[in-house]
């Protein structure tokens, strides 16, 4: 052996290290790629996207209210979140499961930095879910007739839930070094969710990631009263807490991590407390005003002599309402053909989103209620309300009708539609086109007897022009109180009905 020269040896150019954080990012990319190709995550994403696309086509149709559309993005990502929880947990326990811990312990990148990389992989999936949420909401916003405004806080709930669940999987891997712990946590989470769901009125429901509402009402966005921004802050803080505790458990006892954890705890507490404060007195007053004296919060426009009063966000809907009013009037005879109506948008906002309140029919003449939802069944329902007012004079009078005038009302309701039979089916509570049924409208329903339905069906089988001419010709008698279905049939030139013509008691 010859002379010994001992000095620190530098890495060769081929292995020039790029720094610990660059390695964390490289590892995060690898873990993200692996996470996104895990079967549970793929299946969860397929179900999530498939269900969202299917539901988009079924539930909303056109005319979405964006303050509802934002909340509709929250539930489905939970499935992805549960898959991410399981798979991140599985990945974090990979070395333990396959006996590489001893080997990898002497590699440069410390275990806590590897934990950060796993956390970033969960973040990447959460960002992907955020893209899906943005696409889902964007599609709603671009639909014809979209109104209102969404909340960024509500839109963040889905991605933050995915992040929170993924980081929970990571923390569980650090605390319980068994692959069974994560599935058990999933079962426990579902149990907890169902338990809290049962107590959904309590303020503590906001401690859960996703907070559902009992009501299907659409309210103006300033009357929603959901602390969406605080809730997003709470979820972000909670996710950060869980992630940073996982890093601490993995050995990352750095001042920066401890400071981050303190900040995350503060975020969680601030969001958690603020979100459970309940409705402010101003909000309660605003809801009362919007319910009892909506005119104080609305602006009105005139179209073809009729007046349309709507909450500010619904301004763009006036043309759609006016089109229906025009079409219904075009089928009417006598003075009703030219009758100007006042369309008033009304809501029951006093209970917020915690319950659906029914709207009482208006007693003022020629005033029609329109709700906050539109499209689908809401169109023939509004049409029925307009027809009822044109025939009976007021909503109150129309809802207490119990005679053959219902034939004329229903003809006006569906006669102008391109597919009147389909419209009839949609406007009746039981989706029937035969027999008696309750007819829906924005306030109390109307009632069609079996005989009235028979006559209407006969009318719908005849040329529209011919029926319209007969309706106009016999308008006064057809809209006179006490007219029977049989007499209406006679006047309109169809065979007499055989069915029952008695109203509900």
């Amino acid at each position, binding site marked *: 052996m010859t002379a010994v020269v001992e000095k620190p040896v530098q*890495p060769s150019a081929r*292995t020039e290290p790029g*720094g610990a954080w660059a390695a964390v990012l490289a590892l995060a990319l*690898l873990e993200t790629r692996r996470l996104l190709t895990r079967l549970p995550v793929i299946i969860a994403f397929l179900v999530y996207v498939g269900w969202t696309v299917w539901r988009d086509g079924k539930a909303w149709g056109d005319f979405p209210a964006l303050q509802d559309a934002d909340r509709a993005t929250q539930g489905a990502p939970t499935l992805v979140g549960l898959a991410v929880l399981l798979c991140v947990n599985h990945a974090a326990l990979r*070395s333990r499961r396959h006996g*590489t811990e001893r080997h990898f*312990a*002497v590699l*440069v990148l410390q275990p806590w930095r590897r934990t950060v990389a796993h956390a970033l992989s969960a973040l990447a999936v959460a960002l992907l879910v955020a893209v899906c949420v943005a696409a889902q909401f964007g599609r709603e916003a671009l639909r014809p007739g979209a109104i209102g405004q969404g909340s960024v806080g509500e839109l963040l709930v889905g991605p933050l839930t995915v992040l929170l669940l993924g980081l929970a999987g990571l923390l569980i891997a650090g605390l319980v070094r068994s692959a069974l712990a994560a599935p058990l946590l999933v079962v426990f989470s579902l149990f907890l969710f169902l338990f809290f769901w049962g107590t959904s009125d309590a303020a503590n429901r906001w401690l859960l990631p996703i907070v559902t509402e009992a009501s299907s009402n659409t309210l103006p966005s300033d009357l929603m009263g959901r602390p969406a921004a605080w809730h997003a802050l709470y979820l972000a803080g909670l996710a950060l807490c869980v992630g940073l505790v996982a890093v601490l458990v993995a050995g990352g006892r750095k001042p920066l991590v401890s400071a981050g954890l303190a900040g995350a705890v503060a975020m969680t507490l601030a969001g958690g407390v603020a979100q459970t404060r309940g409705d402010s007195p101003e909000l309660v007053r605003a809801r009362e005003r919007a319910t009892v004296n909506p005119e104080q919060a609305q602006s009105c426009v005139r179209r073809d002599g009729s007046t349309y009063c709507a909450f500010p966000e619904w301004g763009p809907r006036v043309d759609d309402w006016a089109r229906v009013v025009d079409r219904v009037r075009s089928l009417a005879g006598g003075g009703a053909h030219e009758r100007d109506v006042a369309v008033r948008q009304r809501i029951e906002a006093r209970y917020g989103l915690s319950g659906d309140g029914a709207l009482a029919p208006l007693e003022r003449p020629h005033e029609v209620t329109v709700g906050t939802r539109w499209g689908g069944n809401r169109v023939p329902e509004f049409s029925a309300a307009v027809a009822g007012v044109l025939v009976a004079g007021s909503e109150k009078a129309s809802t207490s009708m119990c005679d053959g005038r219902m034939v004329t009302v229903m003809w006006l309701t569906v006669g102008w539609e391109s597919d009147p039979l389909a419209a009839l089916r949609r406007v009746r509570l039981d989706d029937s086109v035969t027999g008696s049924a309750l007819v829906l409208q924005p306030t109390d329903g109307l009632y069609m007897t079996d005989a009235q339905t028979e006559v209407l069906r006969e009318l719908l089988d005849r040329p529209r022009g011919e029926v319209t001419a007969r309706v106009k010709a016999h308008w006064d008698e057809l809209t006179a109180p006490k007219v029977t279905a049989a007499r209406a049939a006679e006047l309109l030139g169809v065979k007499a009905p055989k069915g029952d013509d008695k109203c509900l008691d």
Partner: protein
Amino acid sequence: MTTTVSASGIGLRYGGTRALDDVSLRLTTGVTGLLGPNGAGKTTLLRVLATALPADRGSFTVLGHDPGTARGRQEVRRRLGYLPQTPGFHPDFTAFEFVDYVAILKEMTGRAARHREVRRVLDEVGLAEVRGKRIRKLSGGMRQRVALGAALVGDPGFLVLDEPTVGLDPEQRMRFRELIAGAGEGRTVLLSTHQTEDVAMLCHRVLVMAGGRVRFEGTPAELTARAAGRVWSSTERDPGARAGWRTGTGSFRNVGDPPDGAELLEPTLEDGYLLTLDGAGTGAGAIAGEGVSA
């Protein structure tokens, strides 16, 4: 020759057992063999040198860095390749993914350069053709080569191999010897093994350990020379021999102190190793009793 590892008086105690006792050594460029019976402390020494275990006594440097400090340990790890005795694998990774994963954990971050390096080592260990195959579908020998590739990735200056040829068939062992010989060109390799032929064929230096201490440090020729004049042939097992066994020709090969007039044979490395252990009081007789007595 550059000294890569320099250790002085390393000691490590597990409970009441002294696993390493005053171990001093110096490793230079090339392949150094580490021989010793089970429980001699070979794996413990390798783990200490690979920074997986801290020594509780003594001092040592690896590549000029002191693994006793956090910074020094990181620097050593940056230039270390380690193949443990029973390496684990992530079976659903491909060979490429597994070595790439290890490369990232070695903080190789430039994607293109890292992938080039992964391809290079897989090529070097003869796995270029199967780099896209999942590890669960590879044979035991191929998996062992994946582990060697993972140890080699990043061109480490110090390579620690703990019984890498265990469980391999003769052809695979020959292939592995080629790989280890190649790996020893320009870097320091410490090879722990039970196979004295591996040491004879590969190593420029050899250490023999027993009872947690280094009993011999020198060249394979020097270890072999310890048995010069102490190996002889006889028609019956010589009762005075430390070890003796019947050979394929029917005669007995004896190791120990030959009687006068004995027919001396050319010693091998294994003879020198057995006599070294015997001198260390670790029971060469026991070894003979277990495996090589007639």
